[in-house]
C-alpha cells in the first residue's frame, strides 16, 4: 500500500532530525568548536547608522515614491481624497481594456463599489474559503486590486503581506495590478 502523506512526512522528518546533529557538528568542528557555539553577539546588525537615521519628509516621500515607481515602468496618480478613487480606477481599467477584475477582501475596497461603477466587468473578491476557485479567477482576471500594507519611497516598492483576506495571487497573476497606497503608510526606506 502506498505510504500516506503523513507517514511519508514523518519518515522524512525522522531522517532529517537524525542528520541534523552530524551536519551542524561538522560545521562547528570545521570552525574549530567542539559543539555549536552559544548565542553570538551581533553588534553590527542591519544598516549603518547614517542610514537608519535617514528620513524624508511627507511630501518628499510621496514625490520620491512616484518617481521611482515610474522609473521602474509603472504608472502613478496622486489623489487628494478617497472619493476620487472610483473614478480614476474605472477610467484606468477602461483605458486598459480590462474585462475582469479580482480584488482583495479588504473593507476599504468593498466601499469603493467596483461592481456598481464598472458593471461591464466580471468581478471576483478573493476568498480563502474556495482556494482553487480563487486561484483560477486570479489567473484569468485582467486586473487585480489591493491596498498596500506599506510602500517604500526610496526604492519605489509596495509591500504586500498575505493572509486569509489577501491572496498573493491577486497581486501576482493578473496582467494589470493596481495598488492603492494610503499616504500615511508610505515609509522612507
Amino acid at each position, binding site marked *: 500500500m502506498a*505510504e500516506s*502523506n503523513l507517514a*511519508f*512526512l514523518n519518515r*522524512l*522528518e525522522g*531522517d*532529517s532530525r537524525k*542528520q*541534523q546533529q552530524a*551536519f*551542524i557538528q*561538522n*560545521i*562547528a568542528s*570545521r*570552525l*574549530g*568548536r567542539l559543539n*555549536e*557555539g*552559544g*548565542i*553570538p553577539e*551581533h553588534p*553590527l*546588525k*542591519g*544598516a*549603518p547608522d*547614517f*542610514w537608519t537615521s535617514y528620513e524624508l519628509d511627507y511630501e518628499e516621500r510621496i514625490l520620491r515614491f512616484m518617481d*521611482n515607481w515610474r522609473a*521602474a515602468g509603472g504608472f502613478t496618480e496622486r489623489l487628494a481624497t478617497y472619493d476620487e478613487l472610483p473614478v480614476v480606477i474605472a477610467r484606468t481599467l477602461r483605458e486598459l481594456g480590462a474585462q475582469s477584475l479580482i480584488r482583495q477582501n479588504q473593507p476599504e475596497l468593498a466601499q469603493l463599489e467596483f461592481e456598481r461603477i464598472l458593471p461591464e466587468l466580471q468581478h471576483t473578491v*478573493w*476568498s*480563502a*474559503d*474556495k*482556494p482553487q476557485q*480563487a*486561484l483560477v479567477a*486570479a*489567473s484569468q482576471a485582467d486586473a487585480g486590486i489591493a491596498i498596500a500594507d506599506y510602500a517604500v519611497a*526610496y*526604492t*519605489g*516598492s509596495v509591500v504586500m503581506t*498575505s*493572509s*486569509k483576506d489577501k*491572496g*498573493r*495571487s491577486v497581486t*501576482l*497573476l493578473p496582467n494589470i495590478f493596481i495598488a492603492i497606497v494610503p499616504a500615511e503608510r508610505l515609509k522612507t*526606506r
Partner: protein
Amino acid sequence: MSKPQGSSVKQRSETALKDEFLIDAVKFTTEKLKNGKLAATAEHGNWEEWRERGKLIRAHTIAHLDFYLNQFIENARAQGVHVHFAPEAKDAARIAVEIAKHHQAKSVVKSKSMVSEEVHINEAFEELGIESVESDLGEYIIQLANEPPSHIIIPAIHKNRYQIAELLSKEAGQTLPPETKVLAGFARQKLRDKFLEADIGLTGCNFGIAESGSVVIFENEGNARMVSTVPKTQITLMGMERLIPTWDDLEVMATLLPRSATGQKLTVYMSGITGPRRQSDGDGPEEMHIIIVDNGRSLQLGDPDFQELLNCIRCGACLNACPVYRHIGGHSYPGTYSGPIGAVLTPALNKNSGEWEDVANASSLCGACYEACPVKIPLHDMLVYLRNRKVEDGHTATGEKMAMKGFKVLMSSYKLYSKAVKMGQVGQKLLVRNGVIKSQLGPLKGWTAYRHIPALPTRSFREQWKALSTEVEASMPSMSSETKTRLEQMVLNRKKGGHE
C-alpha cells in the same frame, strides 16, 4: 548538456574567442550591467560603508554558521517547513526526487537557482520521466538550447535575440520575429500554462533569515513568486551558507545585491516566505520543503585562505568586471559557476585543485573582481592561493616545471646568470627590430603572439651599477648619525629574524 568543446579552459576559450556572436553578446550585456551598477552605487552614495557592513554581516554569519543554521532550522520547522540535509549534491537530488515521486508529480516548475544547477536537479527529474520546466526566461532559453547557464544572473547572456528567436520559433512551431517583446510574450504565455499545471514548484533562495526561518527570493519576472504560490508543494534548495541573522540585515543585502547585480534599486519582486500556506490562507503551497546543501561548502570553513568565499551573495558583479570573463564568456569555465567567483568556487567545492586544472590561471589578477564585489571577497588573492596549492600538489605542467627549475638554477648563480644574459644579448641580434622582438619562433610564440618582447639592453643593470653607484653616492646628502644607527639596528634586527 552541450557545452563548448575542449577539456581545458584554454581550449574552450579558443573556441569561444572564434564565436563573434558570443563575444558581442557577452560584451554588450556585461558592459550594460557594469555601468548600471556604477550608476546605481554612485547615486546611492556611501558605497564603501555599505560594502564594509555587508562584508561584516556575512563574515559574522559564516563565523557562527552552526548557531545560525540551527536557529534557522528550528524557526522554519516551527512554521511548518520540512527541512532536509544534503551533505552532497546527489543527496539533494535524491531528496527532491523522493518528494516528487511520493506526490506522483508529473511536472515540476522551477525558478532560477544556481544550486539546482550544481546538483543537476533537472537531469534527476528527467530520469524519472518528470517534466522539469525552467520558468525564468533566460533559464528557459538555455534549457531549450540544452546548455548550462553562462552567467550567474543572466544565464543566456551568450545568446543574441536572433538565436533566441530561432529557439523559441522551434518551440512555437512558427517563425517568431527577433523582437524582444514578442519573444518574451510568447515565452510568458507558454510558461504561464506550465505554472497552472505543475505539481511541484522548485525555487532557490537568496537569503535565509535565521531569526524567523524565512526564505527570501529576489527576482524580476515574478516567476519565482508564482513557483512559490501556485503549485501545492514547494521545494527550496538552499546552499547552507545563504543565511543572515535578522530581517534588519536583509536591508543591507537588499541594498547591495540588486544594485551590484543589475543596477536596480530593488528587484521587481522580493518575496519573503515564512512557511507554507497557513490554514486560513487561500494560496501558497500546502507543503514546503527546504533542502540545505553542503556539497563542499563546509570544506572552506576554518580555512583562512578560503572561508570568505562563503560570504558571496551571487550577484555576478565580479563576472561583469572581469576582463577575462568578458572575452571568453561563461562556458569556457568548468563547472556550474563562471567568472572570477567560479574560478575559485569550482575547485574549492570540489576538493581537488588538480582536477580543475587551469581554471585558476584564467585571470590576470588585476583585482577588478574585488573592486566590484559588494562584500569585498579578495578573489584575486584566492586565485593566487589556488595556484600555489596546485603547484604544491604537483599539478604543474611539465614545461612550466622545467622552466621554473631552469629559472632557479640561473637565478642562484651570478656567473651563470651573467653568461645567460651575454648569450641573450648576442643571440637576440637576429630577432630584434626597432628595439623589440616580434618573432613567433618556437617557445617565443606563447608571448609574442599577443605582445612584443623588449630587447635586452646592450649593458645590463649590474654592468652599469659600478658607475651608477658612484654617481648616486656623490649626489646623496650625508646621513645623520642618528639615522645611520637606526638603519644599522634595523638590519641587525632583520638578521635575527625580525623578532627583537
